[in-house]
């Protein structure tokens, strides 16, 4: 590509409508994105943001409406059509090929790959290109062995490598640390303002909107809810447009102090190394009743393994886990007897059966037990549906119907479903991982309030999160993990984020 073609392009969507069956995901939505700007696309979970951009990118076909690219009407039926126009997207789920190296992924994404690839010259060119990037990704490492944050960076680098002139980022910063996010957004904004690229960014973080976005379009429940320059809109205006009420709910209230009664005790826990990554080596970790213990750490330092061991997804090599003094092996019988519940990260993958209905998924914890905890042999479908209805009500889950497969729900609604299921009934120990990942402002407040309410009612909560603000806000006690080990522990009251950050990086 020569420089003459390298200019940002403007895109306008007019009157887009999209139905999934009888459900109207989008109706008469318009969005005008000016060239060389950063455009924010905001809205609650399930508002239709991802659906709208997927229509732009040819991933879905809109039922109604038209698209203009640089003021000319175009039809985009396939991703390849969008590609040819210079439109690209970083999807909410990743599209790197795990078994291929970063370099292979980058080169193969290009349109004009030669029949036989000269790796020596390609690698030299890639290294050249990488020098101009604000963050480095290792070129010869397999994409599958990268941590989530690194994978996200690679996705963005890939789009820049493909010289996109219009780029959609769907919640790009949810897996990045605050510094990484600032750096990345600063880079793309500068690219946009220099006239090379137009950016549409989908995000729930109003701070990022204020800092990096020029204009916004807001959706609410599949309809256009407003648009404007960020300069002239404050956070209250944005919140009001998004949720229809002017104020986000207040911070949850912490009631009472932790009780000196150990609910979860982990001793000398070890797990195997997998593919060169060090396993867990946790000597001692406790969670008391009426207490939230927050585990802070940079993504990929063993938090995921800890969660998997506690959730029964990974075996341990040695060590003991006890809940209420009883040895705990995370079997279904044990978790039912001891009332242990888990809200895993990526709940659609780790806590749901995507092809089963919302009703079935909401009943996964209880379908085989009667009211009196007796084993149940015949499913009580009417009862399951009734309980699902009340959970959908109580948690404000937005779904086309309770009978659709849970996999078609928007990310935030899947999260609500799993939260509803895990907090149902008696809960003595709750293990949560990144509970607010991808949730909108209102849902974040709601979820945190529910976790706090569980704690206030006496539940012991182990909170694993990559969001340090969240840990600071919710925890009674903070534990820092680095390299699979617990490296620091402190009470949350008066904790200094700078100091925690140092421990997270392994200098303590």
């Amino acid at each position, binding site marked *: 590509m020569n420089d003459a073609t390298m200019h940002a392009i403007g895109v306008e969507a007019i009157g887009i409508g999209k139905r999934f069956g009888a459900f109207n995901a989008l109706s008469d939505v318009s969005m005008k994105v000016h060239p060389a700007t950063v455009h924010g696309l905001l809205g609650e979970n399930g508002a239709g943001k991802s659906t709208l951009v997927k229509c732009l990118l040819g991933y879905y076909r809109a039922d109604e409406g038209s698209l203009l690219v640089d003021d000319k009407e175009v039809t985009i039926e396939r991703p*390849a059509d969008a590609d040819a126009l210079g439109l690209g997207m970083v999807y909410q789920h990743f599209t790197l090929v795990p078994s*291929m190296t970063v370099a292979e992924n980058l080169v193969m994404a290009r349109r004009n790959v030669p029949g036989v690839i000269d790796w020596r010259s390609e690698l030299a060119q890639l290294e050249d290109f990488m020098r101009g990037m604000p963050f480095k990704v290792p070129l010869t490492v397999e994409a599958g062995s990268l941590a989530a944050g690194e994978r996200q960076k690679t996705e963005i680098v890939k789009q820049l490598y493909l010289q996109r002139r219009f780029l959609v980022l769907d919640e790009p910063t949810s897996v990045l640390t605050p510094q990484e996010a600032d750096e990345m957004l600063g880079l793309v904004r500068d690219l946009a303002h220099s006239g090379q690229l137009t950016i549409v960014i989908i995000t729930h973080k109003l701070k990022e909107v204020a800092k990096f976005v020029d204009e916004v379009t807001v959706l609410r429940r599949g309809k256009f809810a407003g648009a404007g320059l960020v300069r002239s809109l404050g956070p209250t205006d944005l919140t009001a447009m998004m949720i229809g009420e002017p104020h986000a709910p207040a911070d949850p209230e912490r009631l009472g102090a932790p009780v000196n009664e150990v609910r979860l005790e982990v001793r000398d826990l070890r797990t195997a190394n997998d593919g060169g990554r060090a396993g867990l080596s946790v000597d001692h970790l406790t969670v008391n009743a009426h207490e939230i213990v927050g585990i802070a750490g940079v993504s990929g330092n063993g938090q995921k393994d800890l969660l998997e061991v506690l959730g029964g997804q990974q075996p341990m090599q040695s060590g003991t886990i006890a809940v209420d003094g009883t040895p705990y092996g995370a079997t279904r019988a044990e978790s039912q007897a001891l009332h242990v519940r888990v809200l895993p990260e990526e709940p659609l993958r780790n806590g749901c059966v995507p092809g089963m209905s919302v009703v079935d998924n909401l009943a996964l914890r209880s379908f085989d037990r009667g009211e009196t905890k007796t084993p149940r042999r015949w499913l009580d479908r009417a009862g399951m549906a009734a309980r699902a209805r009340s959970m959908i009500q109580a948690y404000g889950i937005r779904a086309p119907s309770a009978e659709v497969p849970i996999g078609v729900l928007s990310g935030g609604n899947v999260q609500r479903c799993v939260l509803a299921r895990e907090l149902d009934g008696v809960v003595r120990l709750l293990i949560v991982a990144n509970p607010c990942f991808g949730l909108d402002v209102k849902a974040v407040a709601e979820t945190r309030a529910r976790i706090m309410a569980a704690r206030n009612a006496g539940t012991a909560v182990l909170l694993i999160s990559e969001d340090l603000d969240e840990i600071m806000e919710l925890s009674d006690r903070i534990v820092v993990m680095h390299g699979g080990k617990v490296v620091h522990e402190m009470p949350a009251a008066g904790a200094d984020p700078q100091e925690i950050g140092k421990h997270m990086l392994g200098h303590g």
Partner: protein
Amino acid sequence: MDSLATVIVAMLAGSLRVSTPFLFVSLGECLTEKSGRINLGNEGALVLGAMVAYATSYETGSPWCGVLAAAFAGLLLGGLHGAICSMTRINDVAMGIAFMLAGTGIAFFFGKPYVQPSAPLLPGIPFGFWLESPRFANALMVSPLFILGVAAAFALHWFFRTTRMGLRIRIVGDSQDAALALGLPINRTRLLATGCGSALAGIGGAFLSLCYPGSWNEGLSSGQGLMAVALVVFARWNPINCVYASLLFGAAGALGPSLQTVGFTWGYYLFYAAPYVVTLVVLIITAKGGQSLRGMPGQLSIGR
């Protein structure tokens, strides 16, 4: 002492011989699995290839024509598997079993007239010409197909790493999402990989009937086509490793006959079972708990 040397030489010669069909079928299976499908029908392609090769060699008088015809028969059988599996809701494993039975059935049906006549065979390459003892020299007669197979393994390795087509096959096999996002033709790529994979299996069959001792009969294959699936797991989906794995399986297969050459007949059938035992052991070792199978293409139906 002399008898030990005999056993070792016989083992060496035997393992080169026994490993060749393993090598071709496993390379074919590796190619297919890299694209995200399993083709158990390669057993059928192997047997059909053996029959077609023998018949063609007999009719035309040229064993190399036989090899080509075998590859072509495999290509057709694999292509049909690939085409049928392109339809939605068709399971590649179940379809593979159907093709295994179909391939052997067709081969037995059309192969009846070729059990008796003797066709021209592929000559071996006498690497042992400088040896005085005819026994040792004989052991070093290497089939040209073995050399072709090793070359194919290196070519395939290069293909997966440096060609556009090879990388596309890997993308399709590893991440459907990525393939869709890149707009790659998933079904067409898999069709191609399955067809070419079965063509390699067909060449493996040609070895069975056209290399020493060389004949066509219904008991020619002893499940090499199926064991290749285990072999590919053991080789971690790496073509070069397929060579080593085939040699190991070949050595196991040559154990019984070599012991027999020195008159050691105890546990005759037991030693014949060695390759199957090796298959079992290999699968158990590679499936060692808790750790992910490195190298496995993400879209394989057994792994999803």
